[in-house]
Structure formats: C-alpha cells, structure tokens
C-alpha cells in the first residue's frame, strides 16, 4: 500500500537539475521519471489565478497520479488549501504536513489533468519518462524482433535494447507504434514491448550503453504522451499513474 513517507520504494530522491554527480542522467536497470516542479508550479499558479481566492483542493490520490507525494510540498507553498488523498495515506500525511487540510472524501477543485500537464489540458507536462540503452547490436534484413516477431527488419540496421516494458507501464500495445528520443532524433520502438525491456531501431544512428532514451516528456523535442493515448485508447491519467507508481521518481525543483 501507499506509504506517504516514500519508504516503500525509496522512489523520491531530490536532486539538482544536473544531478549531484555532475551528469544529467544515471543509467539504471529500470526506467525512471523526472518530476518537474517548475512545470507543476506554472500549472498550479495559472489555475489559482483563474479561481482567484476560492477554496482550492488538489487531487493527490494514487501518489499524486504517480507523480509522488513530494508534489504536496510545492502545492502547499503555492497556497493550495486542501488535498484529496488516499485513505491509507491520510494518517502519515497528517503527521508530515500538520498545516494541510487533508481528506479522503470529496471532489477536487483543481483539474488534475492541468495540474500535471496531461495532453488536452492547458498545462505543461510535469512527468518525463526515460530509460537507458543496455546493449546495441546488428539486425539483418528479414530478421524478426521480440515475441511473436511482429517486426521484421526491412534492411540491415542497428538496434538498441532499452530498459522499460509493460511492467513499468510502457503499455504492450505501444510496440511498433511509438518513437522514443535518443539524443536529438526520434527512433521507433520495434517488436512487442516485453515485460521489462523494449527494442529501438537506431537506423544509422550511434548509441552506447547508458545513453538516455526518452519515452515521453515536456521538453520541446520529447515524444508526447498524446501518442500513447492515441495508440492505447487508455486515458492520460491512467497512463502516467501506471508509470509513476512503478518507477523511481527524481524530483527537480
């Protein structure tokens, strides 16, 4: 169950924008999300301006739609009045944030889609999902990739095995449908998404172990979560929640 102090998965680690180690990206065996609190602030400030002075309630159930309960600190600082939280998280949060008005019942006044910058809202995306390159290898014309061989290489190419699969919320139906960002270019995910990994066609591009792969995010060249919505028929809310509850979260102020 949800543990409000984040002790469950040690998921919420605060780091500077460039990371303490002086590099912006740390490769791991599993993907991670970056939670951008400046985007969160911009979204919520805009919402608060439009509802000037009214009692404001944010919906932070399901660990703030997978964004992590650390977002509560930022929302409190902006003057959000009340918070709708999971019943199981209520006691722990009340202890941690004695000044906050918490409830497990009721309706939010702040649209979660805009708070978290989901597609279709006026907000800026708060969550960015990245994986890393594990290995790079050749794929010859005619060779199939991953379970069921849904993809066959039309020509000789290079492929990267990348961390992240449907157990981390990268929905299986996205195989052969989406592109990810590697450096400045987008590359297609080929073959079925597996439980914990997927395969990316590099074409003529180069990549090495540890390179960052962006699945979706809010930077100008990042792939958009809107593509995921279009290809899965799932809602943006369930997609970000599905990802954020299962991966490490790095919070950027």
């Amino acid at each position, binding site marked *: *169950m*949800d543990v409000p102090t984040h002790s*469950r*998965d040690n998921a919420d680690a605060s780091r500077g924008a460039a990371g303490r180690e002086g590099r912006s990206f740390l*490769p*791991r*065996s*599993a993907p991670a999300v970056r939670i951008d609190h400046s985007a969160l602030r911009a979204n919520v400030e805009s919402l608060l301006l439009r509802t000037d002075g009214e009692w404001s309630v944010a919906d932070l*159930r*399901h*660990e703030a*739609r997978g964004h992590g309960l650390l977002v509560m600190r930022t929302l409190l600082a902006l003057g959000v009045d009340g918070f709708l939280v*999971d*019943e*199981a998280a209520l006691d722990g949060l009340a202890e941690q944030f004695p000044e906050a008005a918490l409830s497990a019942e009721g309706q939010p006044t702040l649209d979660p889609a805009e708070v978290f910058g989901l597609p279709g809202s006026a907000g800026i995306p708060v969550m960015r999902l990245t994986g*890393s390159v*594990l*290995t790079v*290898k*050749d*794929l010859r014309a005619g*060779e*199939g*990739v*991953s*379970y*069921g*061989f849904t993809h066959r290489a039309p020509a000789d190419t290079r*492929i990267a*095995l990348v*961390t992240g699969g*449907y*157990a981390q*919320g990268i*929905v*299986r*139906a996205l195989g052969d449908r989406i592109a990810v960002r590697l450096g400045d270019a987008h590359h297609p995910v080929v*073959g079925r998404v*597996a*439980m*914990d*990994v997927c*395969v990316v066609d590099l074409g003529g591009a180069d990549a090495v*172990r*540890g390179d960052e792969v962006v699945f979706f995010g809010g930077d100008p060249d990042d792939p958009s979560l809107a593509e995921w919505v279009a290809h*899965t*028929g*799932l*809602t943006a*809310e*369930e997609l970000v*929640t*599905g990802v954020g*509850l*299962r991966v490490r979260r790095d919070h950027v102020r």
Partner: protein
Amino acid sequence: MTAELRVDLDALAENLAVIRNRVAPAEHMLVVKDDAYGHCLEEVVARAWAEGVRWFGAFDARTGRAVRGELGSEARVFIWIVATADEARHAVDDLDLDVGVGDPELLEDLATARGRARVHLKIDSGLHRNGVRPEQWPAFVARAAELEQAGAIEVVGIWSHIAEASDDEDDQARAAFDLAWEQAQQAGLRPSLRHLAASAAGFARPEFRYDLVRIGAFAYGIRPAGGPGEAEIGIRPVSTLAARVTRIADGIATIGVGSLDGLPSTLAGRLEVGTPAGPRQLRAIRAEESDVDVWTDAAMGDEVLVFGAGAPASATDAAELIGTIGEEIAVRVSPTVPRELRLRPIR
C-alpha cells in the same frame, strides 16, 4: 477505493507442484520479477522455497537483493539485466547472484568483480533482444574461456530466449542454441546448465526443457493468450482483484476500483465481473470507480470479483478482450492496491 488483490499461496503451491512434475527431470526456475508479477515477492519466494524451489529468476540486482534478503545464501538467484559496471560488481560481490550475460561489455565488467562471477552466457537464437549473435559467439566464448582460466569468472550456464512465433522458428532457435552449446565446449568451457524455455514451450515441448525451465506466468496461474485453458494446462489463477459496492442507483452498482488502480479503462463494456448474483457486465471504468449492471438484492458493501480466481474472467480472459496478454493485466494492478495473502484452512 475498496479494491484489494487477493493472493492464494496454496494455489501457488499447487501450480508449483504441477510445474515441477511437468518439467522434471529439468528444474524449475521461478521467475519473480516485478514483485512476482504483482503477487508480492517476499511471500511468494518464501512459500516457493518451502515448496522446494531453489532457483529464482529476478531480472536485475534490485530484485535479486530482495530475493537474497528473504531467502539467504542458499537460493540460486539469476539476474539478466545489468545497466552499469558498478551494478555488475554489486551483483557479484555483495549479492552473490548468477548473472546472465548477453554482450561482451558486460562480460568484461563482471571479470572486474572482486569475487568470481558465476555467469550464464546468452546466445541470441533469433529473438534479437539480448544475447550475442551467432557469428560473434565463437569469439565471445573464447574470451569467456580466457577469463575463466584466469579465475575471473566461472561459466556455469548457456541460455537463450525463444520468440514463440511458430514451432518451426522455435526449432530453428533450438538448433542455434545447440550449436552455441557445442561451440562453448570447443572453446574449453564446461558449463553444467542449459536453459531455453519459459512457460509455454516448457510445458508443451519436452525437447526445450534442458536443465532449467524459467517459468513465471504458469506459476501464477496465467495461461497464454490464444492458447490452451488453465484447466487443460493443469494450473489455476493465484490472484483475484476484488472490490466492494459503494453506491447503487439507476440500475447501476458502483464499485470502488478504477483505472488508476490498474484496471484498464478499455475493458469497459467488454468484461463480465462476478457479483453475488452471478456474472454482470462492467459498463464504465472511471479513474477511481466503475459501474456494474445491478443485480437483485444488490447492497452496499457487496463484493464483486473483477478478474482472476473465482471471477468469470481470468487475467488472460480479460487480456484477450483488449488484445493483450494476462501478464500485462496482472502487473498493471497498481502497487497502491493492498495485497491480501490468503491461505485456505489446513486440510
């Protein structure tokens, strides 16, 4: 939210016994990645150990550490995804894990561990994910033999993954696997373990079993989509997603489980759920709750079985309605949904 995921550890034990008998004399490696497919890793590995399982497939060092922490030093814990050299050394020196190696860079990393790494070399037999391509395999095993001679590693296994696209292609993969085994011998390696098959091929095709069979899905009672039924395989679902009625109005009983709990919203209008009066259609799935066609005498607090053991649809039945597989339905159940571990009364 009134949802909970019930996990029946006795059903797990029965499935483990079916698997053990089926794959013998090969041994069963129980795959426990992703919190034992969402079934609660600590409880699953403890019970599996009590039932005689000695090999655990843990994916990465993080999960490997959890298994080691639960079971201590005797369990054999196999991982096959390592992202950095530091992680490779951690897996060997701190956790004493067996590591699957599918590329030359990781082999060199493992050789830098203080301890002698137990490695399983992976041939790419056609799946083209992880694994060394056949044309690069002779050089790879030659280098592994050098490192073994130098005492840096011990090659204990050769392994691969198959695509299960067709029997014919799987046979080609098996031929590539057998050749890779021979070439490893020629390079001077003497590993004792071969493993190729997962659930489906491990059950259906004896020639794919070799020494170890890596099985996750069938242990949790998850049958293959589009394949034989649970009863035909001899397994049964281990978990059930259950929720309670929170509201009744206008011919609809609303239950406290929604898409943010991991119930895919695309199942709305497709899935039949189990109510006290029998199967009923799931009409709508919202973020926090869902609507079910009401039944006679429906009452607040009534329990509805959404999928899994005792429900009209198993995880795979639900998956087939939206074009996916039971494993995805199982692991999508949110970690925020409480797990309730159930043991039936002792017979």
